[in-house]
Each structure stands twice: as C-alpha cells, then as structure tokens.
C-alpha cells in the first residue's frame, strides 16, 4: 500500500515545523479535494498534517475589516451573520459551490488551494503538464469545453474551479500567510497564478507556508450585487462561466464597480478595465454591454469552449443587470 503518516497538531508553529521538514508532506483540511487526488493517484504525500485542530476558525470584524480564519468551513462562512449582512456577494458565491455536504467539510484555505477539474489532470494515463510537467497538454486539441479563454498558455489551458475565490478577488480580499519566520500578507488577486510555463504551480504559496486567514475590507457593495453561475445543471456542477458583480450606486451613478469571472482562467479573473469603464457612469444596459465588451478583450477560445466568448459577456450583462435591480 501507499502508506503515509498522519499527524495532527493544534499549534500553528508545530504545523509549520512539520511541513518545513518534509518536502513530500501535505496539509489536510476538509480533505474533499486532497483525498480524491490521492485516490486517483494524482498526488501521493508521504505525510498528512491534519490542520483541522488549529485555532483558525474565527470569523470576526476588527476595525472595519472582516477576518476569516483559514479553517472556517464554507458553510459556516456562508451562514455567518456579518457575511450575510455586509458581504452578501461572498455568501452567494459560497452557496453556488459544490453541494451542502461538501461545503460542510470544505474550508476557506482548502477552497483556495483546490486544484483544477481538468479531466486530463485527473486521468494519470493522459498527458498533463500540470500533473506531469513536460508530458504535454491533453486539453489543447482535446476536450476543452470547460477550459480557459483568458491568460491560457501553450502548456496549460485549465481553469481554477472555485466560486468563493471569484467573490474574494472582487472584494479586494487579502491573504495572510504564515511561515516559520512570521507572517506575510498579499492581495488576493496576486495569490493565484497564470499557468505560463509552470502550470504545476497554481498559486504563490511557497512550500512550507500556511494560509491562516483572509482579510476583507468593509465596503458599500452589499446592496447591488450578484453572483451568477452558469452551469450544466442547477446545482453541484462547476461553472461554465461565473460572474461576481457588485456596484456602489449613488444618485444613479456608479461610484465603485467590482467585476470578476470564474471558469474562464487559471485564476479568478478580475475585470479591472471593465470596472474602470463603469466608474462614474449610469447603470444602464448600454453601459453594461460596453463593460462586457471591454471585459472580453484578449479572450480566445480553444474550439469546444468557443461558446464562452458569447456566454461570458452575456453573463456579465446579466449579473450587472440583476445587481442593479436589487435596490
């Protein structure tokens, strides 16, 4: 059998010490992604460090910033009163993910770290540069209906599958990361990476680091917001395209716009240019259409996912329209 050690600790420092010592060790949180990958033979850690007992589950507001522990479950976060009240966009995105059972187990950190659902990544008999660097990309020229239209590389056209992360990137969250020497804080938008020539790297977390919490600044985006997830069935399916949209509208003028898409890139895809276009404009369908057009700059299909070139802008328009109609 492929044996592995299992250790657990309730002390962050100990967890960091353990992971630092063993390059083939892995943290395990809810296990909803990692265990599947182990069963399919995609990954084979020699040690699992169970982090569920670390004191990282708190969700609290401190000085106008929401602090979310990395081990808060997806369902706890979605049901939290502060989130419901002040970050309803995040609530919607969480609720659109997976199934109730999975959300009960899935953690914030695990959700950020979940790996792509590309079929070629999962089937170890197929080529995949993300799983086996240098083996090629099965999805290019293969089945790529679910794949990226933005920022793809010749090595990899996979997408990051998370819903939660799409809302978080739109909400200007920050990620607090612990390592043996202390903590560092990076912007959420800089956490995940594009595939480039190193598709094996999903994000900028370094070996030996632990995500400890998210910090999300308070905002005025809790009135006009929408998370639209377009998928093949009404629940329990990954996004073909998803859109997180939030508007701060005052006197019929958009003061702030936040837009991000899921299912379209190797990372949650923030649409800054479209946001900038909307700023100062009236929330009209014509402006939404123009923003969608701007958002699609540089988009490219790979055959089976060409439909996203139409579905994505349509979904942006729809998400903005619903967001606007909320007040």
């Amino acid at each position, binding site marked *: 059998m492929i044996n592995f050690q299992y250790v657990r600790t309730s002390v962050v420092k100990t967890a960091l010490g353990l992971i630092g010592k063993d390059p083939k060790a892995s943290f395990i949180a809810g296990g909803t992604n990692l265990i599947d990958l182990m069963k399919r033979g995609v990954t084979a850690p020699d040690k699992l460090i169970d982090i569920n007992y670390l004191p990282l589950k708190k969700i609290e507001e401190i000085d106008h910033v929401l602090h979310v522990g990395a081990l808060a479950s997806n369902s706890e976060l979605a049901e939290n009163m502060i989130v419901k009240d002040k970050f309803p966009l995040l609530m919607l995105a969480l609720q659109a993910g997976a199934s109730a059972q999975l959300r009960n187990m899935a953690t914030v950190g695990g959700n950020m770290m979940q790996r792509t659902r590309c*079929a070629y990544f999962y089937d170890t008999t197929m080529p995949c540069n993300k799983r086996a660097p240098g083996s090629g990309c099965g999805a290019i020229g293969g089945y790529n209906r679910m794949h990226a239209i933005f920022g793809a590389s010749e090595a990899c056209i996979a997408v990051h599958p998370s819903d939660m992360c799409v809302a978080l990137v739109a909400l200007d969250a920050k990620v607090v990361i612990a390592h043996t020497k202390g903590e560092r804080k990076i912007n959420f938008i800089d956490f995940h990476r594009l595939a480039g020539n190193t598709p094996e790297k999903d994000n900028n977390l370094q070996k030996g680091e632990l995500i400890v919490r998210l910090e999300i600044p308070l905002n005025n985006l809790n009135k006009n917001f929408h998370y639209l997830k377009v998928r093949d*069935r*009404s629940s329990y399916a990954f996004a073909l395209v998803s859109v997180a949209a939030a508007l701060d509208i005052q006197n019929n003028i958009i003061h702030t716009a936040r837009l991000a898409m899921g299912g379209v890139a190797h990372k949650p895809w923030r649409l800054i240019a479209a946001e900038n276009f909307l700023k100062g404009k009236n929330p009209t369908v014509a402006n939404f259409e123009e923003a969608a057009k701007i958002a699609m700059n540089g988009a490219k299909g790979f055959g089976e996912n060409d439909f996203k070139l139409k579905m994505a802008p349509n979904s942006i328009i*729809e998400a903005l329209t619903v967001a606007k109609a909320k007040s």
Partner: protein
Amino acid sequence: MEFFVDENDRVDGIAKVTGKAKFFAEYEVPGLTYGVLVTSTVTKGKITAIDSKAASNAPGVLAVVSHLNKPSVAGYEQEGGSPMKIFYTDQIFYNGQPLAIVVADTFERATYAATLVQVSYAKEDFNTDFEKSISDSTVKKLQGQTPYKRGIEDAYKTAEVQLEQKYHLPVETHNPMELHGIIADWRPNDQVTVYAKTQGVKATQNTIANVFKIPVDKVQVNSEFVGGAFGMALRTWPLEIATIIASKHLAKPVKLVITRDQMFTMVGNRPASYQKIGIGATKDGKLTGITHTAFGQSATYENFTEGVVNMSKFMYQCENVNTNYYVIPLDMGVPIWMRGPGEATGAFALESAIDEMAHALDMDPLEFRIKNDPEIDQVQKRPFSSKYIKEAYKLGADKIGWNERKNKPGSIVDGAWQIGYGVSVGVFGAGRGRATVKGILKADGSLVLQSAASDIGPGTGTGMTLIASKLMNIPVGKITFELGDSSLPPAPSQGGSATLSTVGSAVNDVCVALKATIVELAANANMDATANFVDVLKKNNLAMIEKTIQSSQNNPEAKNYSMYSFSIHFVQVRVHQLTGVVKVSKIVSVGDAGTIVSPKTARSQMVGGAVGGIGMALTEEALLDHRYGRYINNNFADYHVPVHADVPEIDVIFINKPDLIVNPMGAKGMGEIALIGFSAAVANAVFNATGKRIRTLPITPDKVLEA
C-alpha cells in the same frame, strides 16, 4: 421508531430505509477475499506481457489471474467469439477492458496491488468516433433490423409539405447508485453460489452454467435487493465471470465491486445514435410519408441492436412508411438496453420531427397528433387492445394549461426568461412472458408467494402482493412475496416493462387455483363455498395448501390485437435569453397503462422516468476523447444526472382503465413509457420558448446560446 405504513406502501420500504435490506455486496461469506480489476489503458491491440511479480509479492495478495493463468473454463473451449470471453486471449477490444483480477485479503490491498501490475501492449489503430464514422465510407455499417416498407418508399419527398432533419444522441450511462459487481463462491465440488446484481436470477444462473459447463442446479444465484439497474443488469458481464474464475482458481469466495469510472466501460451504455427523419404531409395536416433511418453505436466484439425505429412504423396514421436501422461497430464496450431503450432514442427524433412538421403547417402540435392518430396498428393490420390516447391528450393539456401556449415561438417572456410548452408521446409494447409462481396458503391466515423474479426498484413484491391481496381478500401484511433466488420457480428477467404483466398473471392464476381448492375443501367438509380459508383449512386438518402454476403467455384473443402502453409528456420550460440555461418548470406525464395495480409505485415509475428524461434532455452525456478512446467525464461530478434543483413538481395522471386482452389484471407495463418521448417534449418546449430547434442532446446552455 414507529413507521406508519398503509397497504399501498412498498412492502420492503422499512427494510430499505432501516438498512435491513441486503444488497449483493453486503453478504458476509466466511473466508471472503477481494478482487480488483486491472484494465486496459489502450484501446485496441494485444497484450504482449503482464508483469505481475510486484503485485503478487505485495502484502495480502493471493492471486493475479489473467488469460495467462486462468483455470480451465469449459464453455470457452466450444463456443464462438460472442459474448466476450474474459481472460481468454491477448486481444484488446476497448479501453478499460478488464485484463486481470488481483485478489487479496482486503479490498485496500487488492486495490494497491492492482496498480503494480504492469501490462505491455502492442497497440493498433482504433476508432471510437461515432459521429465521424457516420459519413466515413471506410467504416463498416451493419444492418441492425430488417428494413421496413409500407406503401411508397420515401413518399415524403413528393409531399405538399416536406421536412428532413437529423438528430443526434450521445452515449448515456445507466449509472445507478449501486455499483456493479458480484460475490462468487466456487466450491471444490464444482458448485457455485453467487450474490449478484441482476435483473434476472435465472438468466444469470443459465449463463454461469453455460460458461463453466456445469449443471444449472449447481449454480445458486441470490439477488434479493438491487440498487437500481435501468437495464445494465440484464446480462451477465465479463467482470462477473472474471470473479467466478478467480474464485475457482483460488477455491475461495471472492467479492468484486467495480469503481464508478469502471461503470462507464464495463456494464454497457445507451449507444450514441444518429437519425434522419423525413416527413411529408398535406397542407391541411395529414401525414403522407415517414422515412426514418437510424444508426446506433455497437462494438466490434459483440453486436447490439435495439428498437430505435419501431415507433415510427405505427404511431401515426400514414400510408407510406419506410425505416432502416444500422449499427456501427466501434472499439468501445458493448452497449446494453437503457430504460426506454431504442424506443426512447427513436422517440426523440420522431417526436421532434412531428413537432417540426406541426410548426411548418402552423398547427398546434397536439391537434396535429390527434389528426393523425391511427384507428388501427397499420403494421399488423389489427386494432390496439386498448388505447386512450385522445383522452390522455386532453387530461394532460388541461393540467399543464396548454391553452396558455402560443403557437408562435418566443411569444411568452418573463424578464430574461422565455417560456415555452412542449408535448411528446411515448409508446412501448405491452408484452407478457411466461412465469411460474408457487403459492402457499396457510392456516394461520398468511400467504407466501414464490417466484425467481427480480426487483431492481420498481416494487415487484409490492405489486404482486397487491394483486394477491385483492384476489384472495387477505390483508397485505399477511402476504409475503419471495423473489431474487434462482431456486424459486422460474420467471423471466425484469426488463421491457413486463414483470407486472408476466409474473402478475402467474400470481393471478395461482390465487385462482388456491381459491378453487379452498372451495373444494369446503365442499368436502360440508362448509359453505364462501367460508373463510382459515376455517376451511382447519376443518380439513391442513396446516397449508400449495399450488405451483405456470401462467400461459397469452390470452388466446391476444393474437387479434396489438398491445401497447402509451404515455404523453407535457412540459413547460424557461429558457434564459442571455445564458442559454434551460429549466423545466412544469411536468405533466399521463400514463395509458391499463389498470394501475399499485398506485404509489406506479407513480414512482412515472416520476423516475421524468427525472431520467430531464437528464436525457438536458444534462447526460458520456464523453470520450477519441484520440485516446477513453471516457473523460467518468464520475458523478462531471457526468451530470439531474439534481433535485433541476426537477420541478411532477404531476402524474393515469387513465387507469383495464386492458383485459393483455392479462387478467388489465395492467400494461409502464417502466419504459415513463421515459420514452420525454426528451422530445423538452426539446419541443425549448423551441416553443425560443424558436431554436436543438437536435443534438443534451440541450446544454452552450447549444442554446449558439443555436
């Protein structure tokens, strides 16, 4: 905990919800060992070597069995090549084919050791691409059914209004919750007992006896509870024979439960299909010609055909009809009937085309169907034993609010959503086979009925119990129906919607015979003919009486009639204009299936058919990468069956009028009609909502958007 049951509830409902019901994999057999299959990672070619050293040396491993070292299998030496002989040669017919079985003392150890088996291959070119093969003249096409012709061939081509269209269905998989597998216990005296997942314990018994050339009575098959099958357990699969071979080899009981991804390659599927339909009609809406040509996917090593074009021959009044059906052998696992089988495939094409014609004629599609409703079966030139389809149209139309529908597509809009209505018909033969039932009537007031029938979920025991209860006037709680055991009196497999008709008729006959005996016994004891059977038995000093009766296959009158069950499905859909998402928002399914013997389980059948129909219409598609010949969405996250949120409330209406030509209960089968036609109703509704005609299932958002 207390349960509140009424006489129409499933007789095994409590056993199922309390975990008392035992499914094949749950049997505890002393000394049980565990098998895991090693499968081909290439699609076609030969095995050049199997290195099982590392696997054999792994902890707990008892054997690695393949074609290289399998014990003698007597049946292999005689017959031809079909069905596939597992572990027989070095030939590889498809990707995922079982090549070896690793047996160990635990499932985990067997699973690990299976990863250590190294197979070397000599690869050959292969073809799994059905869609490409249709137009590729170098790819072989086999006649799947004798061509049919009535009147003038291709008469639609000279009709006043003509239409010619093409329809595509993908591979669908049955994928019931319960995984397939078997426990096999081969004994040194060449007797074998299996705990199987099968739709027919007698069929499984016969197959095993045949393959190993042992007497049928040396094979005991147990399959009391089955966790869904939808047709996939209508035959014995190579993986089952593989497990028996391993058990024989080791002289130990072996359990095999395959994995979810293996459910895509080892236990069949609904074949991919391509259909061309030509329809002609007069301007005032009378059909003048139907031509239906179909192609279905099959395998190179075994052939599979089904009734794709059947319905087109008789569903509508039309003097000129011709059909043709071909299969294309591909390097894939062989298909098997999946609920509604070929008829469901054919109904998607025919009922879409009928809707298209109604639209071309600017007629209400319901009115168009009624106008072309045949008086008799034009194929057999005889009347239908019963057919209340016009009544069914009316009931369903009223219930869904058909009068809200506008004939012009795209007329009803609610915000970003377009709303449309669709209708479609389903039909399936109301067959009846031959079965034997033993009835034991006891002086304690109870009745035991026995037959080697199966229950893959529809509620066989419940239906049989209700039939007997009514005839014998014995409360349901006092009746036991025993099934799923090959040593019981024979019954055919559960398929083709025929179990209630077939086994129910035998139950009927046994009950009639038991009653007659009671009347005789009453006379002997000078009792009144209406005396209670308990008193009669007691007076005669009898603890019980037994009768075993084989039902006749037919009512003598049956040859003068065509016997079919019918269904009409009405749906309302909402289609999002910007995202292309389709939601089924209302369903009314009307069943013309004779007397409804068991109201709750009958309703469940219709509900299940509608849910399966939503899957077929909107979500289900097993995808292969033809460069590798491998399935790429072979799990429940990526192969989408409908979830609760996809299913609206479902209204089920039954005509509930007896058809006494078919059987003494007056009941026609309904498992298939619950699904047949449903997908076309959805496609027709999508067209009515949007003006977009989607002829390739499933109707996913991208297709709607791009249409």
